[in-house]
């Protein structure tokens, strides 16, 4: 599997880029083309347009931010099922604190973000604690956290969404910079860029991959395994919280019921992007393309008027097809 080797080793040159991501890009292009053809055939608005691109990016911002964290977790050989609950929790905490301090203007917003991020750090620390200190498998530790955080989110608001938020609250989710570029998209792109650099160019990124490739070997090479894992789960939790802040900002409401099942969507994006669930291998760029493949699908299917039941069937098929295409890379 020579491709893997290249995929894991830092920034590939242009030709390597195509070799590594080519099949994923083809899958993405095929998907877009299919929707365009169907849209034309149906005589509705063409699917491919700049506006639509921005819409799709905008819609993928939340999953996008979270998927950066999830990529790190999965490359480190773990998994984090708590992100869906944390999306809801982040929105709830951010909204509650902002509303409580609403008189303070922008300070209130900042305090809301800070409080939510603190909550995310706390959740990440719990995950890290259970996974490293108590050696509980990540799947089960984060499953437990998912359940508890969801319940806690409901409990602190008594079940009903937090509304009556100041007008500024929509900054993260709905504000456009230069009139066209949504803040949320910028946040997502920053997360991807930062994640990519962290993974590819820093010792930390190398350590993450080493741990996923073999934790014992890594430990005996002096990699601070537990600390790195801890950081990775904190990072993922905090990014989930940021996703939740964006979502609650979009809706100007902190709703404890949102985000159910989102963990699976995010994991799907990461895996479709070529990251191995057994750890050690994966790229941030791949996750970005995987994210787009899934986002285009959701928007496209609604665009052409497919109803929800059909959408689920097709989502399953596309996930399989994309992962399968990625397999061919090795053969090509």
């Amino acid at each position: 599997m020579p491709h893997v080797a290249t995929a894991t080793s830092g920034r590939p040159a242009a030709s390597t880029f195509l070799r590594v991501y080519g099949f994923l890009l083809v899958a993405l292009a095929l998907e877009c083309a299919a929707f365009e053809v169907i849209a034309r055939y149906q005589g509705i608005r063409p699917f491919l347009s700049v506006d639509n691109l921005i819409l799709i990016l905008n819609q993928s911002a939340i999953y996008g931010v979270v998927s950066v964290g999830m990529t790190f977790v999965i490359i480190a050989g773990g998994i984090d099922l708590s992100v869906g609950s944390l999306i809801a929790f982040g929105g709830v905490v951010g909204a509650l604190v902002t509303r409580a301090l609403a008189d303070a203007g922008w300070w209130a917003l900042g305090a809301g973000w800070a409080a939510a991020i603190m909550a995310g750090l706390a959740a990440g620390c719990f995950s890290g604690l259970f996974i490293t200190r108590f050696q509980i498998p990540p799947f089960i530790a984060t499953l437990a956290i998912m359940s508890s955080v969801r319940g806690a989110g409901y409990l602190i608001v008594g079940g009903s969404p937090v509304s009556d938020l100041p007008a500024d609250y929509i900054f993260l989710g709905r504000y456009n910079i230069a009139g066209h570029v949504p803040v949320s998209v910028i946040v997502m792109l920053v997360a991807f860029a930062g994640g990519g650099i962290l993974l590819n160019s820093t010792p930390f990124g190398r350590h993450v991959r080493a741990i996923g490739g073999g934790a014992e070997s890594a430990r005996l090479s002096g990699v601070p395994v537990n600390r790195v894992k801890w950081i990775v789960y904190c990072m993922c939790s905090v990014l989930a919280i940021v996703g939740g802040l964006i979502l609650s900002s979009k809706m100007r409401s902190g709703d404890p019921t949102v985000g159910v099942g989102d963990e699976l969507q995010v994991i799907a994006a990461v895996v479709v992007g070529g990251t191995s669930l057994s750890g050690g291998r994966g790229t941030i760029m791949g996750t970005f393309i995987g994210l787009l493949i899934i986002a285009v699908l959701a928007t496209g299917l609604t665009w052409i008027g497919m109803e929800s039941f059909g959408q689920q069937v097709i989502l399953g098929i596309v996930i399989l097809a994309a992962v399968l295409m990625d397999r061919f890379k090795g053969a090509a």
Partner: protein
Amino acid sequence: MSEEYVLEMRDIVKRFPGVVAVKNGQLTLKPGEVHCLVGENGAGKSTLMKILSGAQPMDSGAILLSGKPATIHSPHHAQQLGISMIYQEFNLSPYLSVAENIYLGREPRLGKSPFINWSKMYNDARSILNRIRVNLDVRKPVNECSVAQQQMVEIAKAISFNSRIIVMDEPSATLTDHELDALFELIAELKRQGIGMIYISHRLEEIFAIGDRVTVMRDGEYIDTKPVSDVTREDIIRMMVGRALTHEFPKEVFDLGEERLRIEGLSRKGGFKDVSFSLHRGEIVGLTGLVGAGRTEVARAIFGADRIDAGQIFLDGKPITVRSPQDAIRQGIGLLTEDRKNQGLILGMTIRENTTLANLKSLVRVLFVDRGRERRITSDFVRELQIKTPGIEQTAQNLSGGNQQKVVLAKWLFTESKVLIFDEPTRGIDVGAKVEIYRLMNDLVRKGVCILMISSELPEVLGMCDRILVMHEGHLAGSLDRKDATQERIMKLATGETLASIA
């Protein structure tokens, strides 16, 4: 025509992306013969054997079994054809018991029922282990067995098939003399039963002990096949390496400097007790003993990989605490582990990434890893250690065993430690490369590093060490100077006699 051969492999070719592992594999095997297969690391020996056992498909060539062409589809098929194989890397199921592993895939059943006949399975397993003189609880899970015990389970499994052909890929690498004797007796018995055996080893003396014919491979090419009685050790080395080796142990003796590392009263429950010794600048100290004597455990404790219950470690005269391998590395102690697959390498990472993993810090320039320098350094190591690979971006998984070992070595060389502990550093390394490693050890010592070498190969210990520590059942049985040490004395200490009694 070729009725006398149970096996003929003709013109075998096997390519991997970027490498031709076997260019021209040739091998014949007679019934009741021990056919030794030798060659440098990465010469293609294991690959050739994996083709025979159905673990990997070949690109071209022919395999004849008792003169008839055969196509081998899978390991299972190979077993049905009467070929069994002991792989270089263990292939045991960690959570199954010894008996379950031996009979995995062909469990005896109660009559025609679908249920396993446990008592038959345990009894059969016991009798096979008895046959190779191994005393082991057949119900013990394999992950609780020592490395040597696991190797014996592999052997027991291979002979339990009653095959016509048994392939052993470096079975001796993890054994000490005691088990090795048992293995050789077993091989003699199998010979008498007319079973053909292919035996791969880097310990050339074994060839002369048991071999009938020897085939040499180099860079995937078949070189020659000779009756063992017609060749000398030097002949074989010349065929393998392409030139003669003048010194197999190029030991250089340096002046003893000040004390570097001192261990006082180190103990760990269930592992070892009250171990004290010291290492000085400019010396290589050997640590030997029988399998399970606790050598590895001592090394792991010094390195901070396991907790210690009592004792103190001094580095350059100052007491230090080592809580983790990270601590140890920071303070200048390195450990090259005996299990390279699970403890030495990240198999999915490249040579480059593995080489620099333990000392990435030194490559950091403003937060980022300086990849250019990393490449240069890795390339230097690949050249210096003669690692056989298409490039530094090859994943460790795809390297031959010996070359993997060299990558681990490169990793520790790059840490620039003050004290290096080598646990079986030349296990599975070919003679030529061994000499390179010994030279590197000399270079390190010259630079002031001191080396603790754990080894079960007495010739190596005698050849390279200034001082030899011998362990017996978890404590230090004695220390011998280079000039006083003999194979016999070491063995006596290792089996429990006191220093006084052998003096």
